[in-house]
């Protein structure tokens, strides 16, 4: 029925239309959207620029020496290790998440709600604490599992090791599994059962249908999730740093950290230029991956698996195997939650780690908990509270402004704004943290009145940029759900625009905003990698404090603080869950 003519617009017409729309109440959102996009682009340019700066960013000079130095500095093994760890972690996470998503959403396995809650809870234990827990379990010297096996089998040496690449893959895989699980849960749940039924009606059996129909239909969701997981996996440095240190098994992520922050022993001065080159080596593949990711997301819409309509997918009858399914999920929960958390709890009660025994019980003390008050100063608490309060508010505000432009306007260039805000989804947090280290140094030099260098604000800024992509996804969806007609209807009824926004728009999007806010609060609380990179005696937050205590050998204190941190997260989670009545599970992204 398209018999309408279309005429191309001239530049002048586009410009005048643009001016009209800007005058039409979009000035404020547009300003903040452009500021947010400007900051993201600026930080990326800072990384690129630093690769050509030989010394400190405040010193003159512009050459390729950083590139030649990186080439001479074990580049190939570094990239090779990174790719290996990235693929390994992704494969391990895919193995768990795809199987568990299928078991929980598409089969008649028992105890589903409980196990699903347990998977969500595993998000509450930060990756570096999973690593700490598994060190206490598998370290060759003190690891409880190793000691138990040596006792049991009468071995001289520890049978299992964690201080190697497999340890990294194991811990990172466990850490990324819940993210992947929630990324594919949506498509898995909302699949049209008719697609499977039609296969069965044509005579294909149930198992084959799952393999030839369900799995291919899930493929875009799985693959796009895998890209995201891979990019996250290669950028984690706190886990490798805890497990293999910085020198022995070089990775891009640890190299960035090492060249930016130096080491604890300060044997090496920061080499920002080299860190920039390593940062670029992670950032460029990330942008390429993001391109494919966005294309896949579009394609998966074309697959029309996700129609949003209330499908109730048919549950696959597992028969006698169903308890095996529950056991499978339970094993994951044991590995990701129960074991690391209980060993941390145990370690926090003892002066030094011992096998649980009657003798060990006599050493149990709450001393390390009572010491937390002294170790953690008022400034750390102030920093952490500021971070948890300001970062989510700022992220949500910016995300709302951006979505307003992207969803509600027809401005030219809104697609570009949308894409730029997606960049932090793919580009690792340490990339932005590195750029912010440089920016903070430059502002301290040239604009000393901006409180960035060594303050909590630079950490807040890093978290805002890092969470922006995720928050805009939520606000985009929230605004899209409020269709224009709902507001038109208010106007027709004689209700003015501002009042319509207050009475229609606000009540409809508030649940989504609260929901995203609670998650952002929890995620910025447990975030350690960016905060560590930007840390300074003046801006230490709780997670950084746990990490440094552990690195300095105060195991029991670190364990006690870790337990406090996980408990705090758990309490926030429980409160939020009772407010949202369980809808917190739907959330993705860590």
């Amino acid at each position, binding site marked *: *029925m398209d018999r*309408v003519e279309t*005429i191309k617009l001239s530049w002048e017409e586009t410009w005048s239309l643009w001016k009209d729309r800007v005058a039409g109440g979009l000035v404020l959102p547009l300003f903040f959207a452009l500021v947010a996009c400007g900051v993201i682009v600026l930080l990326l340019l800072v990384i690129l620029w630093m690769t050509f700066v030989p010394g400190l960013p405040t010193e003159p000079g512009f050459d390729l020496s950083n590139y030649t130095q990186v080439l001479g500095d074990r580049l190939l093994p570094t990239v090779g290790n990174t790719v290996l760890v990235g693929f390994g972690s992704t494969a391990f996470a895919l193995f768990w998440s795809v199987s568990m998503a299928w078991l929980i959403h598409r089969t008649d396995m028992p105890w589903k709600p409980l196990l699903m809650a347990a998977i969500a809870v595993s998000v509450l234990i930060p990756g570096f604490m999973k690593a700490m827990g598994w060190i206490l379990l598998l370290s060759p010297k003190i690891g409880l599992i190793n000691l138990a096996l040596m006792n049991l089998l009468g071995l001289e040496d520890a049978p299992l090791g964690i201080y190697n690449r497999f340890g990294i893959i194991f811990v990172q895989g466990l850490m990324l599994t819940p993210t992947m699980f929630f990324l594919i849960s949506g498509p898995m749940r909302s699949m049209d059962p008719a697609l499977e039924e039609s296969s069965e009606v044509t005579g294909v059996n149930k198992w084959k249908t799952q393999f030839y129909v369900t799995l291919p239909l899930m493929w875009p969701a799985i693959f796009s999730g895998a890209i995201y997981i891979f990019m996250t996996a290669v950028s984690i440095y706190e886990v490798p740093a805890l497990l293999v240190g910085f020198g022995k098994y070089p990775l891009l992520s640890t190299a960035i950290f090492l060249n930016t922050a130096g080491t604890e022993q300060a044997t090496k001065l920061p080499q920002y230029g080299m860190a920039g080159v390593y940062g670029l080596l992670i950032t460029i593949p990330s942008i390429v991956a993001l391109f494919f990711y966005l294309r896949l997301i579009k394609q998966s819409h074309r697959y029309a698996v996700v129609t949003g309509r209330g499908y109730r997918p048919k549950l696959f009858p597992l028969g006698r195997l169903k308890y095996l399914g529950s056991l499978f999920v339970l094993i994951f929960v044991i590995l990701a939650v129960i074991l690391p958390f209980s060993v941390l709890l145990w370690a926090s009660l003892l002066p030094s780690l011992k096998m649980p025994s009657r003798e060990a019980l006599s050493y149990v003390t709450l001393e390390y908990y009572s010491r937390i008050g002294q170790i953690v100063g008022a400034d750390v608490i102030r920093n952490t509270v500021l971070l948890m309060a300001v970062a989510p508010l700022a992220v949500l505000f910016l995300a709302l402004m951006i979505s307003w432009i992207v969803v509600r306007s027809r401005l030219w260039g809104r697609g570009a704004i949308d894409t730029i805000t997606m960049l932090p989804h793919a580009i690792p947090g340490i990339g932005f943290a590195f750029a912010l280290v440089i920016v903070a140094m430059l502002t301290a030099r040239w604009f000393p009145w901006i409180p960035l260098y060594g303050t909590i604000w630079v950490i807040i800024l890093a978290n805002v940029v890092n969470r922006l992509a995720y928050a805009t996804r939520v606000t985009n969806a929230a605004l899209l759900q409020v269709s224009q007609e709902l507001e*038109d*209807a208010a106007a027709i*009824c*004689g*209700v003015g625009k501002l009042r*319509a926004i207050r009475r*229609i728009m606000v009540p409809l999007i508030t649940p989504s905003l609260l929901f995203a806010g609670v998650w952002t609060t929890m995620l910025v609380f447990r975030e350690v990698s960016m905060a560590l990179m930007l840390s300074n005696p003046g801006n230490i937050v709780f997670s950084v404090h746990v990490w440094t205590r552990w690195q300095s050998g105060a195991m029991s204190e670190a364990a006690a603080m870790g337990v406090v941190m996980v408990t705090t997260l758990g309490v926030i989670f429980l409160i939020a869950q009772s407010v949202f009545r369980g809808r917190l599970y739907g959330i993705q992204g860590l």
Partner: protein
Amino acid sequence: MLRIKDLQKTYITADGSVQAVRNVSFEVHKGQFFTLLGPSGCGKSTTLRCVAGLEVPDKGEIWIGDKAVCAIDESKRSLIPAHKRGVGMVFQSYAIWPHLTVFGNVAFPLRYAGARVPKAEIADRVQHSLKLVQLESLAERPAPFLSGGQQQRVALARALVYEPELLLLDEPLSNLDAKLRLEMRHELRELVERLAITALYVTHDQEEALAVSDRIALMQDGHIVEEGDPRKMYDCPDSVLTAAGIGESNRIEGELAREGSEGKEGIVSSSLGEVFCSVPERCRQGEKVTLLFRPEDVVLHTATIEHRVNFWAGTVEAAVYLGKRIECSVRIGEQLLRCEADSQAVLKKGQTVSIEVPLERIRVFPS
């Protein structure tokens, strides 16, 4: 009650501009049920949204009652925003606010629009409005728990609760299933008549338009092709576009072989052979003309009878039994004709039949 003059609207999209409404003018009298009929993309919804104030036309005037709510041309630009026009509207998607109950939805305009209505009065008026659409029992139900038909009624109650003089309806029945649609169609017509309000109705469904309207304007490509009451639009349209646009018809191209004169019918030679029909006076011999007649006007004979005027033999190509009638297509030479037969008739594919088209049922249009 509603007067529209020279309305023009061009949409500017990323791919260029689209002329949605071009010079549309019409007038709706008080109490009239006026329908804009046309295929999707013909500009009917845009016209309606301009009346509502949800779109700003590029040019044109819109008068509601004796108030100009919109008057735009090169020199002046006066516009009353949507929330001050005081019209009622039912949206295609119903636009029921999902965070409110049925009561909350209907009470919304009374609570938050310009004039404050006392609380007790709100409850009374909402109840009254819900009674009009027979939903009094569901007042406390949250909006997401309503069926399509119920949402439709809520939308209607909400549009009527502040007693507008003009009611705008944007394809209000298109999301309902067939049976409910018929039911709601009558109810809507009856309600508008009872409340004596003026209605501007937009639909693409011809049958619906014929059933509910006092007056129909057929739109195509942003123009009004023809305007008139339903009987005129169906039975004796002025243009071939209207005849083709409303209802089904057989369309045959031909050439005028003999002009008609007083009391004498003309003859058109076509692929059917010679067709006798009454020819408009302006047509001249040798001119190309288009013949149109409705399937239901074709008389189908299965028994052999003596030759008559406009009488041809053909074979049945397809026959579809529809309960109250049989729809069939009959081939006569090269020409395929659609016609209807009595449901008692026995028709088989390939059967030979005779076709008769009463000459007064054939309409002739100059090509």
